[in-house]
Protein backbone atom coordinates (compact mmCIF):
# COMPACT_ATOMS: atom_id res chain seq x y z
CA UNK A 1 0.00 0.00 0.00
CA UNK A 2 1.34 3.48 -0.81
CA UNK A 3 2.65 5.69 1.94
CA UNK A 4 -0.45 7.03 3.70
CA UNK A 5 1.43 10.11 4.87
CA UNK A 6 2.16 11.33 1.34
CA UNK A 7 1.09 14.95 1.06
CA UNK A 8 1.29 15.60 -2.64
CA UNK A 9 -1.74 15.25 -4.91
CA UNK A 10 -1.01 11.80 -6.20
CA UNK A 11 -3.06 11.02 -9.30
CA UNK A 12 -3.16 7.37 -8.26
CA UNK A 13 -5.64 8.41 -5.58
CA UNK A 14 -8.20 9.69 -8.01
CA UNK A 15 -10.80 7.33 -9.27
CA UNK A 16 -10.45 8.62 -12.81
CA UNK A 17 -6.76 7.68 -13.04
CA UNK A 18 -5.42 4.62 -14.75
CA UNK A 19 -7.13 2.09 -12.54
CA UNK A 20 -7.82 -1.35 -13.92
CA UNK A 21 -11.26 -1.50 -15.52
CA UNK A 22 -12.20 -4.68 -13.71
CA UNK A 23 -14.30 -4.59 -10.59
CA UNK A 24 -12.87 -5.30 -7.15
CA UNK A 25 -11.89 -8.92 -6.64
CA UNK A 26 -11.52 -10.81 -3.41
CA UNK A 27 -7.90 -11.06 -2.39
CA UNK A 28 -6.84 -8.16 -4.61
CA UNK A 29 -5.94 -4.59 -3.59
CA UNK A 30 -8.98 -2.35 -3.23
CA UNK A 31 -9.09 0.39 -5.87
CA UNK A 32 -7.56 3.58 -4.51
CA UNK A 33 -9.57 6.77 -4.30
CA UNK A 34 -9.64 10.21 -2.82
CA UNK A 35 -13.11 11.35 -1.84
CA UNK A 36 -15.02 14.32 -0.53
CA UNK A 37 -16.80 13.20 2.63
CA UNK A 38 -18.75 14.67 5.50
CA UNK A 39 -15.48 14.50 7.46
CA UNK A 40 -13.35 16.20 4.81
CA UNK A 41 -11.23 14.71 2.05
CA UNK A 42 -10.35 11.10 2.69
CA UNK A 43 -8.14 8.68 0.81
CA UNK A 44 -8.55 4.95 0.96
CA UNK A 45 -5.05 4.55 2.31
CA UNK A 46 -5.84 6.84 5.23
CA UNK A 47 -7.33 3.63 6.63
CA UNK A 48 -4.06 1.72 6.37
CA UNK A 49 -3.71 -0.37 9.52
CA UNK A 50 -7.48 -0.44 10.10
CA UNK A 51 -10.11 -2.74 8.71
CA UNK A 52 -12.63 -0.79 6.67
CA UNK A 53 -16.28 -1.44 5.87
CA UNK A 54 -17.00 0.65 2.77
CA UNK A 55 -20.70 0.59 2.04
CA UNK A 56 -23.03 2.30 -0.39
CA UNK A 57 -26.67 3.24 -0.03
CA UNK A 58 -29.12 4.31 -2.75
CA UNK A 59 -29.97 7.81 -1.59
CA UNK A 60 -30.20 10.16 1.37
CA UNK A 61 -33.62 10.84 2.90
CA UNK A 62 -35.03 7.43 1.99
CA UNK A 63 -36.59 5.13 4.58
CA UNK A 64 -34.66 1.87 4.20
CA UNK A 65 -31.36 3.77 4.05
CA UNK A 66 -32.31 5.64 7.19
CA UNK A 67 -32.91 2.38 9.05
CA UNK A 68 -29.58 1.11 7.78
CA UNK A 69 -27.69 4.19 8.92
CA UNK A 70 -29.24 3.90 12.36
CA UNK A 71 -28.18 0.23 12.38
CA UNK A 72 -24.64 1.02 11.21
CA UNK A 73 -24.34 3.74 13.85
CA UNK A 74 -25.41 1.19 16.46
CA UNK A 75 -22.63 -1.24 15.56
CA UNK A 76 -19.95 1.43 15.12
CA UNK A 77 -18.63 1.02 18.71
CA UNK A 78 -18.47 -2.77 18.32
CA UNK A 79 -16.63 -2.37 15.04
CA UNK A 80 -14.23 0.15 16.56
CA UNK A 81 -13.36 -2.42 19.23
CA UNK A 82 -12.39 -4.71 16.35
CA UNK A 83 -10.24 -2.01 14.70
CA UNK A 84 -12.86 -1.50 12.00
CA UNK A 85 -13.92 1.86 10.56
CA UNK A 86 -17.10 2.57 8.61
CA UNK A 87 -17.29 4.67 5.44
CA UNK A 88 -20.59 5.30 3.66
CA UNK A 89 -21.17 6.39 0.06
CA UNK A 90 -23.97 7.53 -2.17
CA UNK A 91 -24.46 9.65 -5.26
CA UNK A 92 -25.53 12.67 -3.25
CA UNK A 93 -23.91 16.00 -2.38
CA UNK A 94 -22.06 16.79 0.85
CA UNK A 95 -24.88 19.21 1.69
CA UNK A 96 -27.48 16.47 1.27
CA UNK A 97 -25.44 14.10 3.45
CA UNK A 98 -25.07 16.73 6.16
CA UNK A 99 -28.77 17.60 6.07
CA UNK A 100 -29.73 13.92 6.28
CA UNK A 101 -27.32 13.22 9.15
CA UNK A 102 -28.77 16.20 11.00
CA UNK A 103 -32.30 14.97 10.25
CA UNK A 104 -31.50 11.50 11.64
CA UNK A 105 -30.22 13.17 14.79
CA UNK A 106 -33.30 15.39 15.04
CA UNK A 107 -35.94 12.77 14.24
CA UNK A 108 -34.38 9.61 15.67
CA UNK A 109 -31.87 10.94 18.21
CA UNK A 110 -29.02 9.04 16.56
CA UNK A 111 -25.57 10.45 15.84
CA UNK A 112 -23.93 9.15 12.67
CA UNK A 113 -20.28 8.88 13.69
CA UNK A 114 -18.72 7.80 10.41
CA UNK A 115 -17.93 9.78 7.24
CA UNK A 116 -20.07 9.57 4.10
CA UNK A 117 -18.60 9.96 0.63
CA UNK A 118 -20.36 12.42 -1.66
CA UNK A 119 -19.83 10.63 -4.97
CA UNK A 120 -21.75 13.00 -7.20
CA UNK A 121 -19.77 12.14 -10.32
CA UNK A 122 -20.14 8.38 -9.64
CA UNK A 123 -16.39 7.84 -9.93
CA UNK A 124 -15.99 5.64 -6.88
CA UNK A 125 -19.36 3.97 -7.39
CA UNK A 126 -18.25 3.03 -10.88
CA UNK A 127 -14.80 1.97 -9.73
CA UNK A 128 -16.31 -0.40 -7.19
CA UNK A 129 -19.23 -1.61 -9.30
CA UNK A 130 -21.81 -0.23 -6.91
CA UNK A 131 -24.29 0.76 -9.62
CA UNK A 132 -26.50 -2.03 -10.88
CA UNK A 133 -28.15 -0.65 -14.03
CA UNK A 134 -30.85 -3.32 -13.89
CA UNK A 135 -31.97 -1.79 -10.60
CA UNK A 136 -31.12 1.87 -11.07
CA UNK A 137 -28.77 3.88 -13.24
CA UNK A 138 -28.70 6.82 -10.84
CA UNK A 139 -28.38 5.14 -7.45
CA UNK A 140 -25.89 2.81 -5.83
CA UNK A 141 -27.19 -0.53 -4.62
CA UNK A 142 -26.56 -1.71 -1.07
CA UNK A 143 -22.96 -2.86 -1.42
CA UNK A 144 -20.51 -3.70 1.34
CA UNK A 145 -16.77 -4.07 0.84
CA UNK A 146 -14.66 -5.35 3.70
CA UNK A 147 -11.08 -4.16 3.23
CA UNK A 148 -8.31 -5.39 5.50
CA UNK A 149 -5.52 -3.34 7.14
CA UNK A 150 -3.29 -3.95 4.11
CA UNK A 151 -5.87 -2.60 1.67
CA UNK A 152 -6.95 -6.02 0.35
CA UNK A 153 -10.61 -6.70 -0.50
CA UNK A 154 -11.61 -9.54 1.81
CA UNK A 155 -15.38 -9.73 1.37
CA UNK A 156 -18.16 -8.23 -0.72
CA UNK A 157 -21.90 -8.24 -0.10
CA UNK A 158 -24.54 -6.92 -2.50
CA UNK A 159 -28.14 -6.31 -1.48
CA UNK A 160 -30.88 -4.92 -3.72
CA UNK A 161 -32.50 -1.54 -3.25
CA UNK A 162 -35.50 -3.07 -1.52
CA UNK A 163 -33.71 -4.99 1.20
CA UNK A 164 -31.98 -3.48 4.20
CA UNK A 165 -28.75 -5.13 5.31
CA UNK A 166 -28.19 -7.26 8.38
CA UNK A 167 -25.51 -5.50 10.41
CA UNK A 168 -25.14 -8.49 12.75
CA UNK A 169 -23.94 -10.45 9.73
CA UNK A 170 -21.35 -7.78 9.00
CA UNK A 171 -19.97 -8.10 12.54
CA UNK A 172 -20.01 -11.89 12.21
CA UNK A 173 -18.15 -11.62 8.91
CA UNK A 174 -15.50 -9.37 10.46
CA UNK A 175 -15.11 -11.77 13.38
CA UNK A 176 -14.71 -14.69 10.97
CA UNK A 177 -12.11 -12.90 8.83
CA UNK A 178 -10.11 -11.78 11.85
CA UNK A 179 -10.26 -15.29 13.33
CA UNK A 180 -9.05 -16.71 10.03
CA UNK A 181 -6.12 -14.30 9.97
CA UNK A 182 -5.19 -14.88 13.59
CA UNK A 183 -5.42 -18.67 13.67
CA UNK A 184 -5.01 -19.64 9.99
CA UNK A 185 -8.30 -21.51 9.98
CA UNK A 186 -11.60 -21.38 8.14
CA UNK A 187 -15.05 -20.95 9.65
CA UNK A 188 -18.06 -23.17 9.01
CA UNK A 189 -21.58 -22.17 8.05
CA UNK A 190 -23.28 -19.91 10.58
CA UNK A 191 -20.13 -19.82 12.71
CA UNK A 192 -20.06 -17.45 15.63
CA UNK A 193 -17.17 -16.50 17.94
CA UNK A 194 -16.58 -19.18 20.55
CA UNK A 195 -17.59 -22.02 18.26
CA UNK A 196 -15.14 -24.50 16.78
CA UNK A 197 -13.42 -23.63 13.53
CA UNK A 198 -12.43 -25.66 10.49
CA UNK A 199 -8.86 -26.85 10.14
CA UNK A 200 -7.91 -26.31 6.50
CA UNK A 201 -8.00 -29.64 4.65
CA UNK A 202 -4.67 -31.37 4.05
CA UNK A 203 -3.16 -31.22 0.58
CA UNK A 204 -0.89 -34.25 0.73
CA UNK A 205 -1.07 -37.81 2.02
CA UNK A 206 1.65 -36.98 4.54
CA UNK A 207 -0.49 -34.17 5.90
CA UNK A 208 -3.48 -36.52 6.10
CA UNK A 209 -1.60 -38.92 8.34
CA UNK A 210 -0.32 -36.09 10.50
CA UNK A 211 -3.78 -34.56 10.69
CA UNK A 212 -5.42 -37.71 11.98
CA UNK A 213 -2.84 -37.92 14.78
CA UNK A 214 -2.99 -34.26 15.71
CA UNK A 215 -5.87 -34.54 18.15
CA UNK A 216 -8.39 -32.52 16.18
CA UNK A 217 -12.09 -33.35 16.24
CA UNK A 218 -12.20 -35.15 12.88
CA UNK A 219 -15.28 -36.61 11.21
CA UNK A 220 -13.07 -37.69 8.34
CA UNK A 221 -9.61 -36.83 7.06
CA UNK A 222 -10.83 -33.72 5.24
CA UNK A 223 -13.28 -32.55 7.89
CA UNK A 224 -11.61 -31.56 11.13
CA UNK A 225 -12.53 -28.92 13.68
CA UNK A 226 -10.76 -27.39 16.62
CA UNK A 227 -11.37 -24.79 19.29
CA UNK A 228 -9.47 -21.50 19.12
Amino acid at each position, binding site marked *: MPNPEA*TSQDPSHTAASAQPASLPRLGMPAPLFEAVTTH*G*KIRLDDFHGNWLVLFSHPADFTPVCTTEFIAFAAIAPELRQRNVELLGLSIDSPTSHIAWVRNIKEKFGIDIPFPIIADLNKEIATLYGMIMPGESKTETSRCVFVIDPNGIVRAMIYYPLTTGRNTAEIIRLIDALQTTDKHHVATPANWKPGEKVIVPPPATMEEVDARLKAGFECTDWYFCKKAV
Partner: protein
Amino acid sequence: MACVGSNGELTESARRMLAALENPATPEQVAAHTELPLFRVRGGLREMAEAGLIELSAGVYASTQQGRALLSAKR
Protein backbone atom coordinates in the same frame (compact mmCIF):
# COMPACT_ATOMS: atom_id res chain seq x y z
CA MET B 1 -10.95 22.80 3.42
CA ALA B 2 -11.77 20.80 6.49
CA CYS B 3 -8.96 22.20 8.63
CA VAL B 4 -9.96 25.81 8.15
CA GLY B 5 -13.61 26.85 8.32
CA SER B 6 -15.39 29.27 6.02
CA ASN B 7 -14.65 32.02 8.54
CA GLY B 8 -10.91 31.46 8.13
CA GLU B 9 -10.54 29.98 11.59
CA LEU B 10 -9.24 26.54 12.46
CA THR B 11 -11.88 23.88 12.85
CA GLU B 12 -12.08 22.20 16.23
CA SER B 13 -10.47 18.99 15.02
CA ALA B 14 -7.70 20.92 13.26
CA ARG B 15 -7.08 22.93 16.40
CA ARG B 16 -6.71 19.73 18.42
CA MET B 17 -4.33 18.23 15.88
CA LEU B 18 -2.28 21.39 15.63
CA ALA B 19 -2.08 21.65 19.41
CA ALA B 20 -0.87 18.05 19.51
CA LEU B 21 2.01 19.10 17.28
CA GLU B 22 3.55 21.35 19.90
CA ASN B 23 6.33 18.82 19.54
CA PRO B 24 6.84 16.99 16.24
CA ALA B 25 4.79 13.82 16.10
CA THR B 26 3.66 10.98 13.87
CA PRO B 27 0.00 10.64 12.85
CA GLU B 28 -0.30 7.74 15.27
CA GLN B 29 0.93 9.93 18.13
CA VAL B 30 -1.42 12.74 17.13
CA ALA B 31 -4.33 10.28 17.00
CA ALA B 32 -3.47 8.99 20.47
CA HIS B 33 -3.15 12.52 21.84
CA THR B 34 -6.35 13.86 20.30
CA GLU B 35 -8.37 10.62 20.51
CA LEU B 36 -9.42 11.20 16.91
CA PRO B 37 -9.60 8.22 14.51
CA LEU B 38 -6.29 7.67 12.75
CA PHE B 39 -7.86 7.94 9.28
CA ARG B 40 -9.23 11.34 10.16
CA VAL B 41 -5.88 12.48 11.57
CA ARG B 42 -4.09 11.38 8.39
CA GLY B 43 -6.52 13.32 6.21
CA GLY B 44 -6.46 16.35 8.49
CA LEU B 45 -2.69 16.47 8.68
CA ARG B 46 -2.45 16.16 4.92
CA GLU B 47 -4.81 19.10 4.45
CA MET B 48 -2.98 21.20 7.02
CA ALA B 49 0.32 20.42 5.30
CA GLU B 50 -1.17 21.52 1.98
CA ALA B 51 -2.30 24.73 3.70
CA GLY B 52 1.21 25.34 5.03
CA LEU B 53 0.20 25.03 8.68
CA ILE B 54 2.41 22.02 9.29
CA GLU B 55 5.21 20.27 7.45
CA LEU B 56 6.19 16.65 7.04
CA SER B 57 9.72 15.34 7.33
CA ALA B 58 10.62 11.64 7.49
CA GLY B 59 7.13 10.65 8.59
CA VAL B 60 6.98 13.21 11.40
CA TYR B 61 4.81 16.31 11.29
CA ALA B 62 5.76 19.63 12.86
CA SER B 63 3.84 22.90 13.00
CA THR B 64 5.08 25.79 10.92
CA GLN B 65 5.28 29.40 12.00
CA GLN B 66 2.04 30.00 10.11
CA GLY B 67 0.38 27.15 11.96
CA ARG B 68 1.59 28.28 15.34
CA ALA B 69 0.42 31.83 14.62
CA LEU B 70 -3.06 30.62 13.64
CA LEU B 71 -3.28 28.44 16.73
CA SER B 72 -2.14 31.15 19.14
CA ALA B 73 -4.34 33.79 17.53
CA LYS B 74 -7.43 32.22 19.05
CA ARG B 75 -5.96 31.24 22.43
